């Protein structure tokens, strides 16, 4: 679960990590109060989860009340779905640092990454100046030790004062990482101001989805999703993605779905959406089909090859869904696994052709979109 910048900064503040003065507004009419609180110059930042806000014009500077209002209206009125704005004190920037904590799956530790080349994406630094990235691994059982924090801060070239405040800040950031079961906490840039203070000018916090049962503070709402259907899917526990293409995929598992997605693209087709139809969801066919219909595919392609998810149970569900919801698009199936004979019977019963070869099924689906197009 990705948090919004303003949420990340609230967490930072609670953890004694310095952040700029700021005010959250959801309507341009609130801008006067916000700038009053924050002062000038200020920055108006769209609170959206996707990256590249700067390039997309979703972060704007303002030096006057009028400018601030104009920028706020402009961003809130943009085609991007912007639920709120963070109005923030503009910082007097001396240096920009990159700092993050994430998981290192190889060593089984937390990985602190830092770079004096902040302000750009770390992927960019990794590609062009890999030796400018400082890494420090932390055993979760031992926790981050002060000497490790100092290693990072001296590595960034800070002076003794900077190392002291920077180390204290990093220890706090690590506590936040642990306390919130974070997958990622990132400050980019961490600004060194003209008078030597460290301030988190941006903030990303992603909470591990598998830990949400013990992280009650944030609850997923509509604003965390790009579309209604993705939101509703998530509420039902059905992962759901919407794309721009024609074929709706109801597949079991990430591995198989990725392959089908490739095969569709290889064959010149395009994907309209993906609704997870495996794991704990294989009995939720009606709900899944309902969601699928809202993504308006031209054809739906169902591919499964189950272990716990019995083929015949999946087929039963699918038949049920088709009978109840009567989708208008054609449905192509390759449902394999335990109970295949019964599966085939069931599918034929509603007029579907039970394919068993995945590539054949993909080709059929692509063909059908072409036919539909004509």
């Amino acid at each position, binding site marked *: 679960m990705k948090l919004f910048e303003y949420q990340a900064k609230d967490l930072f503040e609670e953890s004694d990590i310095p952040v700029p003065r700021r005010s959250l507004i959801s309507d341009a009419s609130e801008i006067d109060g916000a700038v009053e609180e924050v002062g000038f110059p200020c920055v108006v930042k769209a609170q959206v989860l996707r990256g590249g806000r700067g390039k997309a014009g979703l972060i704007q500077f303002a030096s006057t009340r009028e400018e601030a209002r104009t920028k706020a209206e402009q961003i809130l009125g943009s085609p991007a779905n912007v639920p709120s704005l963070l109005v923030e004190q503009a910082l007097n920037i001396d240096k920009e640092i990159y700092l993050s904590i994430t998981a290192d*799956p190889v060593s089984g530790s937390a990985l602190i990454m830092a770079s004096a080349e902040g302000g750009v994406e770390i992927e960019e630094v990794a590609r062009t100046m890999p030796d400018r990235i400082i890494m420090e691994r932390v055993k979760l059982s031992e926790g981050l030790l002060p000497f490790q924090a100092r290693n990072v801060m001296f590595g960034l070239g800070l002076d003794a004062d900077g190392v002291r405040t920077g180390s204290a800040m990093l220890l706090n950031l690590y506590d936040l990482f642990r306390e919130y079961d974070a997958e990622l906490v990132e400050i980019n840039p961490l600004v060194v101001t003209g008078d030597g203070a460290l301030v988190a000018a941006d903030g990303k916090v992603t909470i591990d989805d598998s830990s949400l049962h013990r992280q009650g503070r944030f609850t997923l709402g509509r604003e965390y999703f790009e579309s209604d259907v993705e939101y509703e899917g998530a509420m039902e526990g059905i992962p759901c993605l919407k794309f721009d293409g024609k074929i709706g995929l109801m597949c079991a598992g990430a591995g198989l779905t990725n392959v089908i997605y490739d095969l569709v693209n290889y064959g010149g087709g395009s994907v309209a959406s993906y609704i997870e139809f495996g794991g704990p969801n294989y009995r939720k066919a009606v709900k899944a089909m309902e969601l699928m219909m809202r993504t308006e595919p031209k054809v739906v392609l169902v591919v499964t090859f189950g272990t716990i998810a019995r083929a015949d149970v999946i087929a039963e569900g699918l038949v049920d869904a088709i009978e109840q919801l009567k989708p208008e698009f054609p449905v192509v199936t390759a449902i394999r696994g335990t109970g295949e004979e019964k599966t085939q019977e069931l599918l034929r019963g509603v007029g579907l052709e039970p394919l068993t070869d995945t590539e054949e099924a993909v080709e059929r689906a692509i063909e059908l979109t072409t036919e539909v197009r004509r």
Partner: protein
Amino acid sequence: MSVVLDSSTRVLVQGITGREGSFWTEHMVNYGTNVVAGATPGREGQEVHGVPVFHTVRRAAAEFPADASLLFVPPRFAKDAIYEALDAGIKTVVVLSEGIPLHDALQIRRAALSEGAMVIGGNTSGVISTGEAMMGFFPYWIERVYRPGRIGIMTRSGSLTNEVTAQIVKAGFGASTLVGVGGDSVPLTRFAEVLPMFEADPETDAVVIIGELGGTMEEEVAEAIEAGIFTKPLVASLGGRTAPKGTKMGHAGAIITAGKGTVEDKVAALTGAGALVADRPSSVGEMLQSVLEKVG
């Protein structure tokens, strides 16, 4: 013969009295797995399909020493159960649970590394040495997938595994051992850590890895080949070439982070090391035919 487990491996089942634990214990026993004991707190004295149940792993192991433990426990209890198995000196643990908290997974992996143990999973169907024994849930009765043979298989996926394995069988081969390392972003055992076992196994002629975008496990396999740690033919089936960046297609492992783990990277690393890379399941069989003809 096989790696990780065979018909002589003494298997303990944690969470044996639950619905899934009991259902699959019966299948494992029927398949020939040497299930020696089970553990569920509060259920000592019961039996599950002839397997005696104990309150704790320590009490079970005192009467029935085990080489390996299979866990049927909810993901939030996985860490505790795995530590319990490690504490009892068990060096091979298979955990099927999907949704182990990330920080727990990091600690488990670290603990396993420092104990010299192999914890396989989570979010996997487990391990099957075809025709011998299995730890996990595999529809072994589907013959066009689970045919015994001489190909070692490692996979990050569930359904896709059946898809690929069916292609391997169609091409005339079968599996020696299939190891599901699981689809989590922190697989508790990594491809490259299983590879030396397949290298040492005289009954494994080649290895197929079923990978995907995200993480660096496939790159590590390439390194192992380059380093001469693995010398048998290797075919990789990789999905996610055309996946839109930054989207999570199902499970957590399949996401590209910090510029690492694109399929392009993986293909370059693996082909650079001399492995064959299939862009679709149906190619895997053909590729195996091409390399095993060369070898044989």
